């Protein structure tokens, strides 16, 4: 009964999305107030039914209703409750429903938080979101209905893939999808503005907080995914340049470019065309990512049973959305105009360079991800493009970007002078060079790569502090009150930029000083890695809620002093019989130590992998700071008082030139 209710709710949501995608947009174009007024209630109704459908699926999983095919193939009566909940999005069908659920959430949020927007704009934005919802709802109902029944009803389910039975599964997909799907708002604003022919600074001010929010969630989602892969896959890496990772990274890169470009459009009215194109690209890449991961083109833990029908549908949808919006852009963009002029040396041009570099990076990731697929599709052979390619491309592209990150916030809008910038930044440059050369001596061994990485990180930190000092210079009032007076969006930027620095320190130290040893150990044997000594105390059998485990015991000492015990496990899941390695990790501020069990060699000996990963936690710390920076920027006062200000400023007048 409940699954049928869910199915019915999905159909109703589909019908409402048709209404939402047509009447309000036509109403806005033809100036029919009754039709434009439909946008909010219809959007809210659609969201309600999607939420009902989602609730029905969650319920089916929680009560282990194995008459639902989706539950039977992805859950099991022994599965702990939190993973039964997470298994809701553990399948292709379920994850599509999560996608639509997130889209409904964003649509609802826009319909509630848009009181200060003109009615026709709201109608267009919600209408575009309705069209996107329509595509996905239709896709679900036609090719991947999560409520399909299964007869006869099996006694038990096939279980969730053991790799997914992890707290990461509860957090990573929802966060990532919040981000992915959140770019649909910026996209809808861009399309709405193109349709309405009104693209100005006010438009940028409206879409900016939504973009920042989506970007922050995407940042967290990627961070959790990376952390999860690090501790669960048992080989200690944090980023593999796997196509599915790239699929989430490309929207992030373009989203980052969009954030910066929106700032220029809002403050200076420049880059309008460009910003619109970025908004379209960010969401398009989210769709491309969904296509890559969900269509079965790529095989990995993220992709499920391959069904050509699905791939074709998503591809067609992709073509319609991307092709349609680019065509609209081509027709309407020339009318928009490029906006105000600026000099070759100015904050605008530095931000433009930032955008170009980020897009070049995106392009290189896209090439490395899609080229093997193309060759394969055309039957020209199978190739793979691995981490060496991406490493070789990313370092040279990111280095100038990091340099600009220091200069950009100090440059004046419209016109800046290089001598001024040099005068401001020479000390920052000198300090970062000297410390970067010296610090590696303290951490052990001097390596050029480490020095270079630290230089980039210290440069960001030093330049950021110069920027803060510039803001409070020449002020009589107290330093603290002056600092407190800076807008939160400024502190958000500072935090996010410092997050990049922290991240770079993490990458540099891990790459420079990590040590890894695979050894055969008998009970009582010791091995030394990164200053720690590990003694193997043998393996015992353990029983988990839905698995059997062999648990290794290790005693860790440093300079003869006891530090702790570590217990890595090798698990065998009851339902599928699939083995899984659970590494034991001790995470610390200055790095991790990491032990995982390989295979038993003979009666007592095991092959064991031991790692020392200095500063690896800084990777995720840096990403967390970036996301926090985004959230902090959202708490800026002007977003709360934005309503009155928009009323005070008539449209067009805000073009701020």
């Amino acid at each position, binding site marked *: 009964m409940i699954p049928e209710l869910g199915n019915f709710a999905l159909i109703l949501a589909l019908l409402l999305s048709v209404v939402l995608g047509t009447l309000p947009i036509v109403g806005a174009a033809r100036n029919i107030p009754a039709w434009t007024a439909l946008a909010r209630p219809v959007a809210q109704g659609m969201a309600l039914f999607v939420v009902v459908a989602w609730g029905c699926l969650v319920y089916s999983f929680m009560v282990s209703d194995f008459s639902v095919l989706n539950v039977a193939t992805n859950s099991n009566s022994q599965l702990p409750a939190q993973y039964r909940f997470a298994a809701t999005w553990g399948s292709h069908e379920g994850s599509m429903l999560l996608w639509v659920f997130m889209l409904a959430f964003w649509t609802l949020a826009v319909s509630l938080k848009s009181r200060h927007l003109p009615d026709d704009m709201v109608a267009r934005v919600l209408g575009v979101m309705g069209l996107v919802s329509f595509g996905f709802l239709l896709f679900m109902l036609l090719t991947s209905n999560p409520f399909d029944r299964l007869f006869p009803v099996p006694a038990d389910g096939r279980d969730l*893939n053991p*790799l997914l039975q992890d707290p990461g599964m509860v957090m990573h997909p929802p966060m990532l999808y919040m981000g992915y799907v959140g770019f649909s708002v910026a996209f809808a604003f861009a399309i709405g503005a193109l349709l309405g022919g009104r693209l100005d600074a006010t438009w940028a001010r409206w879409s900016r907080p939504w973009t920042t929010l989506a970007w922050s969630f995407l940042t967290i989602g990627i961070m959790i995914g990376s952390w999860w892969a690090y501790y669960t*896959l*048992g*080989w200690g890496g944090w980023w593999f340049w796997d196509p599915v990772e790239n699929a989430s990274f490309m929207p992030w890169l373009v989203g980052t470019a969009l954030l910066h470009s929106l700032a220029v459009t809002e403050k200076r009215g420049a880059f309008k065309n460009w910003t619109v194109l970025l908004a379209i690209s960010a969401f398009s890449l989210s769709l491309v990512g969904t296509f890559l991961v969900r269509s079965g083109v790529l*095989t*990995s*833990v993220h992709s499920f049973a391959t069904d050509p029908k699905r791939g074709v549908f998503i591809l067609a949808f992709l073509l319609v959305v991307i092709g349609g919006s680019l065509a609209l852009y081509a027709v309407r963009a020339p009318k928009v105009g490029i906006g105000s002029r600026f000099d*070759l040396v100015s904050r605008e041009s530095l931000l433009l*360079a930032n955008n*170009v*570099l980020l897009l*070049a990076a995106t*392009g*290189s990731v896209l*090439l*490395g991800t899609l*080229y093997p697929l193309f060759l394969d599709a055309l039957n020209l*052979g*199978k*190739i*793979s*493009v*691995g981490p*060496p*390619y991406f490493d*070789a*491309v990313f370092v*040279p*592209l990111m280095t100038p970007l990091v340099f600009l990150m220091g200069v950009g916030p100090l440059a004046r809008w419209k016109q800046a002078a290089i001598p001024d910038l040099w005068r401001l930044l020479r000390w920052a440059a000198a300090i970062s060079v000297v410390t970067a050369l010296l610090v590696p001596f303290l951490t052990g061994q001097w390596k050029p790569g480490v020095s270079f990485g630290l230089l980039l990180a210290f440069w960001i930190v030093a330049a950021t502090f110069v920027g803060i000092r510039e803001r409070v210079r020449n002020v009589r009032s107290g330093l603290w009150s002056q600092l407190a007076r800076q807008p939160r969006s400024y502190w958000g930027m500072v935090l996010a930029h410092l997050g990049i620095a922290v991240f770079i320190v993490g990458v540099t130290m891990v790459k420079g000083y990590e040590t890894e040893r*695979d*050894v*055969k150990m008998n009970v009582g044997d010791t091995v030394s890695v990164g200053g720690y000594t590990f003694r193997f105390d043998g393996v015992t059998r353990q029983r988990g809620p839905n698995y059997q485990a062999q648990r290794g015991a290790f005693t860790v000492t440093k300079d003869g002093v006891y530090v702790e015990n570590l217990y890595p496990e090798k698990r065998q899941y009851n339902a*599928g*019989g*699939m*083995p*899984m*390695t659970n590494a034991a990790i001790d995470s610390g501020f200055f790095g991790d130590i990491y032990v*995982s069990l*390989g*295979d038993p*060699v003979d009666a007592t*000996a095991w*092959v064991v*992998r031991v790692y020392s990963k200095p500063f690896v936690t800084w990777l995720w710390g840096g990403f967390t700071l970036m996301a926090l920076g985004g959230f902090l920027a959202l708490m800026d006062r002007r977003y709360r008082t934005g309503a009155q200000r928009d009323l005070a400023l008539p449209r067009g007048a805000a073009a701020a030139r």
Partner: protein
Amino acid sequence: MKARHRRFLWIGAGVAVLGGAAALVLNAFQSNLVFFFTPSQIVANEAPQGRAFRVGGLVEEKSLARDSDGLTIRFKVTDTAATVPVVYKGILPDLFKEGKGVVAQGKIGPDGVFQASEVLAKHDENYMPPEAADAVNKAHGAAAAEKTAKTLQR
């Protein structure tokens, strides 16, 4: 500077940056592509010497052996028509099993033994690496391979 000059300067700078990026990307691309070969192709000497590539197929039954150091592992990869010996030092992925699909990356030694630097993990026990399935397909004709794939999935 006149507006037109400035525009030229902009376009020039843009082209230079993009050109540089493209050169960088293509160069890195060229030197880091990893090609895939089936055991039959390797036996027929079609695979390059001294350059890393991937081999895929099934782990031959009863071919897995471990040297006395406990770390060095030897096994054979087959596409059912030809067989290539592989040596790998390290820890195998959880789902590595005799009779199942596998993909290894590395170089072929002068002795004809494939020195694997990486044995790729699968994430799901029913999943067959596409390269491995492909290798078996090519060697065996589609019908037979379908059968293998089905047996594998059981």
